């Protein structure tokens, strides 16, 4: 499996579960169905985890929600993690 560019990693991850880290402490896990060069993506069966720090109480609040089918705008994407391993 030859990966020449970062986009090749996304291409081989189509139809696979990936993790996407977004700005403002948001983590998404879902199945990748589509993407483009801006890193806009369509994910299925998404679990969104938001981590907020409450400045007053100094407590960390984690909120989770599930979304069936989600379009994510690429300009908020920080990184993408896949489960692939080099063979």
């Amino acid at each position, binding site marked *: 499996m030859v990966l020449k*560019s970062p*986009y090749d990693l*996304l*291409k081989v991850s*189509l*139809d696979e579960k990936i993790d996407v880290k*977004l700005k403002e402490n948001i983590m998404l896990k879902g199945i990748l*169905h*589509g*993407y*483009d*060069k801006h890193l*806009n993506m*369509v994910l*299925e069966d998404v679990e969104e985890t938001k981590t907020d720090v409450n400045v007053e109480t100094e407590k960390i609040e984690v909120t989770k929600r599930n*979304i*069936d*089918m*989600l*379009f*994510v*705008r690429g*300009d*908020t994407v920080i990184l993408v993690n896949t489960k692939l391993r080099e063979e």
Partner: protein
Amino acid sequence: MLFYSFFKTLMGKRITVELKNDIVIEGLLHSVDQYLNLKINDIRIISHPKKELFGTLKNIFIRGSVIRYMHLPKDDIDTDILQDATRREHNTHRIVIDNKKK
């Protein structure tokens, strides 16, 4: 142009748009352009954390850059077609990169 074409197939469907300022709006997707700006009709405000006023607003234009998410109707999407279109778009993009390197 992948997602531009993709959203054109969803015109006339109800979708939920979540903006970067945490406002959540549900409505009928009327139209989309190359920047993924949207025109949404018959809106319902689902959430506006800072209690922004919307009055009797019905039809709106949303600049694409302020969108964080769009919640889409799973049943109206063929994921196989989307994956194929993505692979084709990927190959087109690769050709552009390879040509620039020459």
